[in-house]
Protein backbone atom coordinates (compact mmCIF):
# COMPACT_ATOMS: atom_id res chain seq x y z
CA UNK A 1 0.00 0.00 0.00
CA UNK A 2 1.39 3.31 -1.00
CA UNK A 3 -0.56 6.37 0.08
CA UNK A 4 1.65 8.66 -1.95
CA UNK A 5 0.76 6.90 -5.16
CA UNK A 6 -1.75 8.50 -7.52
CA UNK A 7 -3.28 5.03 -7.69
CA UNK A 8 -5.30 3.09 -5.17
CA UNK A 9 -5.12 -0.68 -4.78
CA UNK A 10 -8.53 -2.14 -3.99
CA UNK A 11 -7.26 -5.26 -2.30
CA UNK A 12 -3.57 -4.82 -1.55
CA UNK A 13 -3.39 -7.85 0.71
CA UNK A 14 -4.96 -10.40 -1.64
CA UNK A 15 -1.67 -11.52 -3.19
CA UNK A 16 1.71 -12.29 -1.60
CA UNK A 17 4.36 -9.67 -2.28
CA UNK A 18 7.74 -10.27 -3.87
CA UNK A 19 10.73 -8.03 -4.38
CA UNK A 20 11.26 -6.31 -7.71
CA UNK A 21 14.12 -3.94 -8.33
CA UNK A 22 13.33 -0.94 -10.53
CA UNK A 23 16.14 1.47 -11.33
CA UNK A 24 18.17 0.30 -8.37
CA UNK A 25 15.38 0.55 -5.81
CA UNK A 26 13.50 -2.39 -4.34
CA UNK A 27 9.71 -2.55 -4.37
CA UNK A 28 7.37 -5.10 -2.85
CA UNK A 29 4.88 -5.91 -5.59
CA UNK A 30 2.08 -8.49 -5.83
CA UNK A 31 3.35 -11.73 -7.33
CA UNK A 32 1.88 -12.42 -10.76
CA UNK A 33 0.52 -8.89 -11.10
CA UNK A 34 0.81 -6.85 -14.24
CA UNK A 35 4.19 -5.12 -13.90
CA UNK A 36 3.05 -1.74 -15.26
CA UNK A 37 0.01 -1.71 -12.97
CA UNK A 38 2.10 -2.73 -9.97
CA UNK A 39 4.69 -0.02 -10.61
CA UNK A 40 1.95 2.62 -10.96
CA UNK A 41 0.40 1.44 -7.71
CA UNK A 42 3.83 1.66 -6.09
CA UNK A 43 3.87 5.36 -6.93
CA UNK A 44 6.00 5.45 -10.06
CA UNK A 45 4.72 7.75 -12.75
CA UNK A 46 7.26 7.51 -15.52
CA UNK A 47 9.09 4.35 -16.55
CA UNK A 48 11.36 5.73 -19.23
CA UNK A 49 12.65 8.78 -21.08
CA UNK A 50 12.17 8.90 -24.82
CA UNK A 51 15.21 8.40 -27.03
CA UNK A 52 14.11 11.33 -29.20
CA UNK A 53 13.76 14.25 -26.75
CA UNK A 54 14.40 12.63 -23.38
CA UNK A 55 10.83 13.34 -22.28
CA UNK A 56 9.47 11.15 -19.47
CA UNK A 57 6.76 8.63 -20.33
CA UNK A 58 4.57 6.29 -18.36
CA UNK A 59 2.03 3.58 -19.14
CA UNK A 60 -0.61 4.90 -21.54
CA UNK A 61 -2.72 2.14 -23.12
CA UNK A 62 -2.10 -0.86 -20.80
CA UNK A 63 -2.84 -3.22 -23.67
CA UNK A 64 0.47 -3.66 -25.43
CA UNK A 65 -0.23 -1.24 -28.25
CA UNK A 66 1.41 2.11 -27.46
CA UNK A 67 4.93 1.06 -26.39
CA UNK A 68 5.15 3.91 -23.93
CA UNK A 69 5.72 1.68 -20.89
CA UNK A 70 8.99 0.26 -22.23
CA UNK A 71 11.47 -0.97 -19.64
CA UNK A 72 14.58 -3.12 -19.82
CA UNK A 73 14.71 -6.63 -18.39
CA UNK A 74 17.82 -8.78 -18.92
CA UNK A 75 19.06 -6.27 -21.48
CA UNK A 76 15.91 -6.59 -23.57
CA UNK A 77 13.43 -3.77 -24.10
CA UNK A 78 9.97 -4.93 -23.07
CA UNK A 79 6.53 -3.54 -22.45
CA UNK A 80 5.91 -3.38 -18.70
CA UNK A 81 2.19 -3.88 -19.31
CA UNK A 82 2.92 -7.25 -20.94
CA UNK A 83 5.14 -8.60 -18.14
CA UNK A 84 4.06 -10.34 -14.93
CA UNK A 85 5.69 -9.59 -11.60
CA UNK A 86 8.01 -12.34 -10.38
CA UNK A 87 10.36 -12.52 -7.42
CA UNK A 88 13.77 -11.03 -8.01
CA UNK A 89 12.85 -9.32 -11.27
CA UNK A 90 15.38 -6.62 -12.13
CA UNK A 91 13.97 -3.81 -14.21
CA UNK A 92 15.70 -0.70 -15.47
CA UNK A 93 14.45 2.39 -17.22
CA UNK A 94 14.48 1.91 -20.97
CA UNK A 95 16.55 4.18 -23.11
CA UNK A 96 18.15 5.81 -20.08
CA UNK A 97 21.44 5.88 -21.99
CA UNK A 98 20.06 5.95 -25.51
CA UNK A 99 19.79 8.49 -28.25
CA UNK A 100 22.25 11.04 -29.48
Amino acid sequence: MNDASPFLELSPDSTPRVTVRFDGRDYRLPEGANLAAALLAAGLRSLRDTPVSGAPRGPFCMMGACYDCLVQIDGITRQACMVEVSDGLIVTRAHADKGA
Partner: protein
Amino acid sequence: MQADYAIIGGGVVGLSIAWGLLKKGRSVLVLDGDDGSYRASRGNFGLVWVQSKGLSQPAYARWSQKSAAAWADFAADLAESTGRDLSLVQQGGLDYHIDEEAFDKKVKSYEKLRDELDGNYPFEVLGHNALKGEEPNIGPKVVGAILHHQDGHVNPLRLLKALSDDVRRMGGKVCTGVTVTDVDKPSSFRITCTDGATHEAGKVVLSAGLGGIALGPKLGFQAPMRPQRGQVLVTEKLPKLMNRPSGIIRQVDEGGVQIGDSKEEVGYDDSVTIDTTAHIAARAATVFPDLARAQIVRAWGALRILSPDGLPIYQESPEMSGAYLVTCHSGITLAAAHARYLTDWLEGNDAAPDLEVFSERRFAVS
Protein backbone atom coordinates in the same frame (compact mmCIF):
# COMPACT_ATOMS: atom_id res chain seq x y z
CA MET B 1 4.16 27.49 -69.68
CA GLN B 2 7.10 25.48 -70.89
CA ALA B 3 9.88 24.35 -68.56
CA ASP B 4 13.45 23.89 -69.74
CA TYR B 5 13.36 20.41 -68.28
CA ALA B 6 10.67 17.98 -67.26
CA ILE B 7 11.95 15.36 -64.85
CA ILE B 8 9.81 12.25 -64.73
CA GLY B 9 10.34 10.70 -61.30
CA GLY B 10 10.75 12.67 -58.10
CA GLY B 11 12.90 10.30 -56.10
CA VAL B 12 16.46 11.02 -55.06
CA VAL B 13 17.77 10.55 -58.63
CA GLY B 14 15.24 12.88 -60.25
CA LEU B 15 15.42 15.48 -57.50
CA SER B 16 19.25 15.49 -57.48
CA ILE B 17 19.19 16.29 -61.19
CA ALA B 18 16.43 18.87 -60.76
CA TRP B 19 18.40 20.50 -57.95
CA GLY B 20 21.56 20.64 -60.07
CA LEU B 21 19.69 22.11 -63.04
CA LEU B 22 18.05 24.77 -60.87
CA LYS B 23 21.52 25.72 -59.60
CA LYS B 24 22.46 26.27 -63.24
CA GLY B 25 19.51 28.57 -63.68
CA ARG B 26 17.27 26.22 -65.62
CA SER B 27 13.53 26.00 -65.08
CA VAL B 28 12.43 22.57 -63.95
CA LEU B 29 9.19 20.63 -63.64
CA VAL B 30 9.28 17.42 -61.60
CA LEU B 31 6.49 14.88 -62.03
CA ASP B 32 6.32 12.46 -59.13
CA GLY B 33 4.24 9.34 -58.46
CA ASP B 34 1.85 8.53 -55.66
CA ASP B 35 2.13 7.50 -52.03
CA GLY B 36 2.20 3.82 -52.86
CA SER B 37 4.68 3.88 -55.74
CA TYR B 38 7.71 1.60 -55.51
CA ARG B 39 10.17 3.98 -54.07
CA ALA B 40 13.80 3.00 -53.75
CA SER B 41 14.34 6.48 -52.32
CA ARG B 42 12.38 5.43 -49.25
CA GLY B 43 13.65 1.88 -48.94
CA ASN B 44 17.39 2.17 -49.53
CA PHE B 45 20.27 1.58 -47.16
CA GLY B 46 21.78 5.08 -47.10
CA LEU B 47 25.34 4.26 -48.04
CA VAL B 48 27.67 6.61 -49.87
CA TRP B 49 29.76 3.74 -51.05
CA VAL B 50 32.79 3.16 -53.21
CA GLN B 51 34.19 -0.26 -52.36
CA SER B 52 33.08 -3.19 -54.47
CA LYS B 53 31.65 -0.85 -57.11
CA GLY B 54 33.02 -1.37 -60.62
CA LEU B 55 35.17 -4.42 -59.96
CA SER B 56 34.72 -5.31 -63.62
CA GLN B 57 34.31 -1.76 -64.93
CA PRO B 58 36.78 0.74 -63.44
CA ALA B 59 34.88 3.64 -65.01
CA TYR B 60 32.04 2.91 -62.59
CA ALA B 61 34.46 2.87 -59.67
CA ARG B 62 35.80 6.26 -60.83
CA TRP B 63 32.30 7.70 -61.21
CA SER B 64 31.39 6.52 -57.70
CA GLN B 65 34.62 8.00 -56.33
CA LYS B 66 33.94 11.28 -58.08
CA SER B 67 30.50 11.41 -56.49
CA ALA B 68 31.76 10.39 -53.03
CA ALA B 69 34.35 13.17 -53.26
CA ALA B 70 31.65 15.70 -54.18
CA TRP B 71 29.31 14.62 -51.39
CA ALA B 72 30.64 16.75 -48.52
CA ASP B 73 30.19 19.95 -50.48
CA PHE B 74 26.80 18.82 -51.82
CA ALA B 75 25.56 17.98 -48.29
CA ALA B 76 26.87 21.25 -46.89
CA ASP B 77 25.11 23.18 -49.63
CA LEU B 78 21.81 21.42 -48.93
CA ALA B 79 22.21 21.83 -45.18
CA GLU B 80 22.86 25.53 -45.56
CA SER B 81 19.80 26.20 -47.65
CA THR B 82 17.39 23.90 -45.77
CA GLY B 83 18.79 24.32 -42.27
CA ARG B 84 18.82 20.56 -41.76
CA ASP B 85 21.93 18.44 -41.39
CA LEU B 86 21.98 15.27 -43.50
CA SER B 87 24.19 13.34 -41.05
CA LEU B 88 26.78 12.60 -43.71
CA VAL B 89 29.77 10.76 -42.27
CA GLN B 90 32.59 9.77 -44.62
CA GLN B 91 35.16 8.20 -42.36
CA GLY B 92 35.45 4.90 -44.16
CA GLY B 93 33.31 1.82 -44.43
CA LEU B 94 33.80 -1.86 -43.64
CA ASP B 95 33.21 -5.07 -45.50
CA TYR B 96 32.99 -7.81 -42.86
CA HIS B 97 34.06 -11.37 -43.53
CA ILE B 98 33.43 -14.59 -41.67
CA ASP B 99 34.94 -16.83 -44.33
CA GLU B 100 38.73 -16.72 -44.92
CA GLU B 101 38.52 -17.86 -48.52
CA ALA B 102 35.93 -15.28 -49.59
CA PHE B 103 37.91 -12.65 -47.69
CA ASP B 104 41.12 -13.44 -49.64
CA LYS B 105 39.26 -13.47 -52.92
CA LYS B 106 37.70 -10.09 -52.21
CA VAL B 107 41.05 -8.58 -51.25
CA LYS B 108 42.60 -9.84 -54.51
CA SER B 109 39.81 -8.30 -56.57
CA TYR B 110 40.33 -4.98 -54.76
CA GLU B 111 44.08 -5.15 -55.43
CA LYS B 112 43.43 -5.66 -59.13
CA LEU B 113 41.03 -2.72 -59.24
CA ARG B 114 43.52 -0.57 -57.32
CA ASP B 115 46.08 -1.19 -60.10
CA GLU B 116 43.53 -0.28 -62.74
CA LEU B 117 42.77 2.94 -60.87
CA ASP B 118 46.48 3.87 -60.70
CA GLY B 119 46.54 3.26 -56.99
CA ASN B 120 43.64 5.56 -56.07
CA TYR B 121 41.71 2.95 -54.10
CA PRO B 122 42.60 3.45 -50.46
CA PHE B 123 41.70 0.32 -48.54
CA GLU B 124 43.19 -1.58 -45.64
CA VAL B 125 42.85 -5.22 -44.79
CA LEU B 126 42.15 -5.71 -41.10
CA GLY B 127 42.49 -9.07 -39.38
CA HIS B 128 40.28 -9.88 -36.40
CA ASN B 129 42.48 -8.21 -33.80
CA ALA B 130 43.11 -5.05 -35.77
CA LEU B 131 39.39 -4.86 -36.53
CA LYS B 132 38.58 -5.29 -32.84
CA GLY B 133 40.56 -2.11 -32.23
CA GLU B 134 38.29 -0.26 -34.65
CA GLU B 135 35.03 -2.00 -33.77
CA PRO B 136 35.25 -3.39 -30.21
CA ASN B 137 31.79 -5.01 -30.38
CA ILE B 138 32.43 -7.49 -33.20
CA GLY B 139 31.91 -11.18 -32.57
CA PRO B 140 34.55 -13.94 -32.43
CA LYS B 141 33.57 -15.43 -35.79
CA VAL B 142 34.47 -12.32 -37.76
CA VAL B 143 37.81 -13.11 -39.41
CA GLY B 144 38.39 -9.59 -40.60
CA ALA B 145 37.19 -6.74 -42.74
CA ILE B 146 38.22 -4.50 -45.55
CA LEU B 147 38.26 -0.87 -44.48
CA HIS B 148 37.81 1.44 -47.43
CA HIS B 149 38.52 5.06 -46.68
CA GLN B 150 36.32 6.52 -49.41
CA ASP B 151 33.13 5.00 -47.98
CA GLY B 152 30.55 6.62 -45.79
CA HIS B 153 26.85 6.95 -45.10
CA VAL B 154 24.10 9.53 -44.87
CA ASN B 155 20.51 9.80 -43.68
CA PRO B 156 18.79 9.07 -47.00
CA LEU B 157 15.34 10.19 -45.92
CA ARG B 158 16.68 13.52 -44.81
CA LEU B 159 18.38 13.78 -48.20
CA LEU B 160 15.07 13.10 -49.94
CA LYS B 161 13.32 15.71 -47.84
CA ALA B 162 16.08 18.29 -48.21
CA LEU B 163 16.09 17.89 -51.99
CA SER B 164 12.32 18.07 -52.08
CA ASP B 165 12.41 21.22 -49.98
CA ASP B 166 15.24 22.94 -51.82
CA VAL B 167 13.99 22.18 -55.31
CA ARG B 168 10.77 23.97 -54.40
CA ARG B 169 12.63 26.80 -52.67
CA MET B 170 14.64 27.45 -55.84
CA GLY B 171 11.47 27.69 -57.88
CA GLY B 172 11.25 24.17 -59.22
CA LYS B 173 7.71 23.03 -59.81
CA VAL B 174 7.00 19.64 -58.28
CA CYS B 175 3.75 17.81 -58.98
CA THR B 176 3.16 14.79 -56.77
CA GLY B 177 0.56 12.05 -57.11
CA VAL B 178 1.02 12.11 -60.87
CA THR B 179 1.48 9.17 -63.22
CA VAL B 180 2.89 9.86 -66.67
CA THR B 181 1.24 7.79 -69.38
CA ASP B 182 2.81 9.14 -72.54
CA VAL B 183 5.52 11.39 -73.88
CA ASP B 184 5.70 12.67 -77.46
CA LYS B 185 7.51 15.44 -79.24
CA PRO B 186 5.44 17.34 -81.78
CA SER B 187 7.85 20.28 -81.46
CA SER B 188 8.78 20.51 -77.84
CA PHE B 189 8.14 17.60 -75.52
CA ARG B 190 4.56 16.96 -74.49
CA ILE B 191 3.98 14.83 -71.40
CA THR B 192 0.55 13.36 -70.73
CA CYS B 193 -0.53 12.24 -67.27
CA THR B 194 -3.32 9.97 -66.02
CA ASP B 195 -5.24 12.95 -64.68
CA GLY B 196 -5.47 14.23 -68.27
CA ALA B 197 -3.05 17.10 -67.71
CA THR B 198 -0.30 17.72 -70.26
CA HIS B 199 3.00 19.46 -69.63
CA GLU B 200 5.52 20.91 -72.08
CA ALA B 201 9.26 21.01 -71.76
CA GLY B 202 12.35 21.60 -73.85
CA LYS B 203 14.06 18.47 -72.56
CA VAL B 204 12.93 15.42 -70.68
CA VAL B 205 14.79 13.31 -68.12
CA LEU B 206 13.34 9.89 -67.41
CA SER B 207 14.41 9.05 -63.87
CA ALA B 208 11.36 7.11 -62.78
CA GLY B 209 13.14 4.02 -61.49
CA LEU B 210 11.09 0.94 -62.27
CA GLY B 211 8.45 3.20 -63.81
CA GLY B 212 10.98 3.82 -66.57
CA ILE B 213 10.61 0.27 -67.84
CA ALA B 214 7.16 0.97 -69.28
CA LEU B 215 7.80 4.57 -70.27
CA GLY B 216 11.28 4.08 -71.73
CA PRO B 217 10.30 2.48 -75.05
CA LYS B 218 7.87 5.35 -75.71
CA LEU B 219 10.87 7.66 -75.74
CA GLY B 220 13.04 5.34 -77.79
CA PHE B 221 14.96 3.66 -74.97
CA GLN B 222 15.48 -0.03 -74.43
CA ALA B 223 15.20 0.58 -70.68
CA PRO B 224 16.36 -2.96 -69.82
CA MET B 225 16.01 -2.57 -66.04
CA ARG B 226 14.58 -5.11 -63.64
CA PRO B 227 13.56 -5.07 -59.98
CA GLN B 228 15.70 -6.85 -57.43
CA ARG B 229 14.41 -7.15 -53.89
CA GLY B 230 16.44 -6.23 -50.86
CA GLN B 231 15.04 -6.77 -47.38
CA VAL B 232 16.02 -4.49 -44.55
CA LEU B 233 15.54 -4.70 -40.78
CA VAL B 234 15.71 -1.79 -38.35
CA THR B 235 16.17 -2.13 -34.61
CA GLU B 236 14.95 0.09 -31.82
CA LYS B 237 17.18 3.05 -31.09
CA LEU B 238 20.33 1.78 -29.39
CA PRO B 239 23.39 3.27 -27.70
CA LYS B 240 26.34 3.59 -30.03
CA LEU B 241 27.35 0.07 -31.02
CA MET B 242 29.58 0.62 -34.04
CA ASN B 243 31.84 3.30 -35.43
CA ARG B 244 31.59 2.73 -39.16
CA PRO B 245 28.95 1.54 -41.59
CA SER B 246 29.25 -1.65 -43.57
CA GLY B 247 27.41 -2.94 -46.58
CA ILE B 248 25.16 -5.07 -44.36
CA ILE B 249 24.92 -3.23 -41.04
CA ARG B 250 24.99 0.40 -40.12
CA GLN B 251 23.83 2.47 -37.20
CA VAL B 252 21.86 5.48 -38.29
CA ASP B 253 22.24 8.85 -36.61
CA GLU B 254 18.90 8.43 -34.80
CA GLY B 255 20.27 5.31 -33.04
CA GLY B 256 18.54 2.48 -34.88
CA VAL B 257 20.66 -0.21 -36.49
CA GLN B 258 19.80 -0.98 -40.10
CA ILE B 259 20.47 -4.47 -41.31
CA GLY B 260 20.43 -5.61 -44.91
CA ASP B 261 20.74 -6.60 -47.57
CA SER B 262 19.38 -9.47 -49.53
CA LYS B 263 19.50 -9.72 -53.29
CA GLU B 264 16.42 -11.56 -54.49
CA GLU B 265 15.09 -11.98 -58.01
CA VAL B 266 11.37 -12.08 -57.25
CA GLY B 267 9.95 -9.57 -59.69
CA TYR B 268 7.74 -6.89 -58.19
CA ASP B 269 7.10 -8.78 -54.95
CA ASP B 270 8.31 -6.38 -52.24
CA SER B 271 7.05 -8.37 -49.27
CA VAL B 272 8.99 -9.36 -46.16
CA THR B 273 9.81 -13.06 -45.79
CA ILE B 274 10.85 -15.05 -42.73
CA ASP B 275 13.60 -17.03 -44.48
CA THR B 276 15.47 -14.03 -45.74
CA THR B 277 15.03 -11.82 -42.69
CA ALA B 278 16.07 -14.69 -40.42
CA HIS B 279 19.19 -15.13 -42.52
CA ILE B 280 20.22 -11.48 -42.48
CA ALA B 281 19.40 -11.31 -38.76
CA ALA B 282 21.65 -14.30 -38.07
CA ARG B 283 24.46 -12.76 -40.09
CA ALA B 284 24.12 -9.48 -38.22
CA ALA B 285 24.22 -11.29 -34.86
CA THR B 286 27.41 -13.03 -35.95
CA VAL B 287 29.07 -9.70 -36.67
CA PHE B 288 27.65 -7.89 -33.62
CA PRO B 289 26.45 -10.44 -31.03
CA ASP B 290 24.92 -7.68 -28.86
CA LEU B 291 22.35 -7.12 -31.58
CA ALA B 292 20.65 -10.40 -30.64
CA ARG B 293 18.94 -8.63 -27.71
CA ALA B 294 17.78 -5.67 -29.77
CA GLN B 295 14.14 -5.38 -30.80
CA ILE B 296 13.46 -5.23 -34.51
CA VAL B 297 10.97 -2.43 -34.88
CA ARG B 298 10.47 -2.43 -38.62
CA ALA B 299 11.26 -4.49 -41.69
CA TRP B 300 10.64 -3.90 -45.33
CA GLY B 301 11.37 -5.14 -48.78
CA ALA B 302 12.47 -2.56 -51.33
CA LEU B 303 13.13 -3.01 -55.02
CA ARG B 304 16.46 -2.07 -56.52
CA ILE B 305 16.47 -0.87 -60.11
CA LEU B 306 19.09 -2.98 -61.81
CA SER B 307 20.45 -2.87 -65.32
CA PRO B 308 21.71 -6.18 -66.77
CA ASP B 309 25.30 -5.46 -65.61
CA GLY B 310 24.30 -3.55 -62.47
CA LEU B 311 25.83 -0.29 -63.69
CA PRO B 312 23.96 2.97 -64.23
CA ILE B 313 22.46 3.85 -67.59
CA TYR B 314 22.93 7.37 -68.94
CA GLN B 315 21.49 7.57 -72.42
CA GLU B 316 20.13 10.24 -74.72
CA SER B 317 17.30 8.91 -76.83
CA PRO B 318 18.38 7.98 -80.35
CA GLU B 319 14.84 8.70 -81.53
CA MET B 320 13.92 11.83 -79.59
CA SER B 321 16.88 14.09 -79.06
CA GLY B 322 16.62 15.95 -75.78
CA ALA B 323 15.18 12.96 -73.93
CA TYR B 324 17.49 11.28 -71.44
CA LEU B 325 17.29 8.06 -69.48
CA VAL B 326 18.98 8.16 -66.10
CA THR B 327 18.79 5.06 -63.95
CA CYS B 328 21.00 3.43 -61.37
CA HIS B 329 20.78 1.35 -58.24
CA SER B 330 22.99 3.66 -56.23
CA GLY B 331 21.00 6.86 -56.25
CA ILE B 332 22.32 7.93 -52.85
CA THR B 333 26.02 7.41 -53.63
CA LEU B 334 25.60 9.05 -57.02
CA ALA B 335 23.36 11.92 -55.86
CA ALA B 336 26.28 14.34 -55.67
CA ALA B 337 27.55 13.40 -59.13
CA HIS B 338 24.05 13.68 -60.54
CA ALA B 339 23.60 17.12 -59.01
CA ARG B 340 27.03 18.48 -59.88
CA TYR B 341 28.23 16.74 -63.06
CA LEU B 342 25.42 14.92 -64.81
CA THR B 343 23.72 18.25 -65.34
CA ASP B 344 26.66 19.31 -67.57
CA TRP B 345 26.08 16.19 -69.62
CA LEU B 346 22.37 17.04 -69.95
CA GLU B 347 23.27 20.57 -70.94
CA GLY B 348 25.78 19.26 -73.43
CA ASN B 349 28.43 21.78 -72.37
CA ASP B 350 32.20 21.44 -72.41
CA ALA B 351 32.37 20.30 -68.80
CA ALA B 352 30.24 17.26 -69.55
CA PRO B 353 31.71 14.05 -68.17
CA ASP B 354 32.35 11.23 -70.61
CA LEU B 355 29.59 8.76 -69.84
CA GLU B 356 29.80 6.74 -73.04
CA VAL B 357 30.59 3.57 -71.11
CA PHE B 358 27.18 3.90 -69.39
CA SER B 359 25.23 4.13 -72.63
CA GLU B 360 22.59 1.49 -73.06
CA ARG B 361 24.17 0.62 -76.40
CA ARG B 362 26.33 -1.72 -74.34
CA PHE B 363 23.35 -4.06 -74.10
CA ALA B 364 22.75 -4.17 -77.88
CA VAL B 365 22.48 -7.73 -79.16
CA SER B 366 25.37 -8.35 -81.56
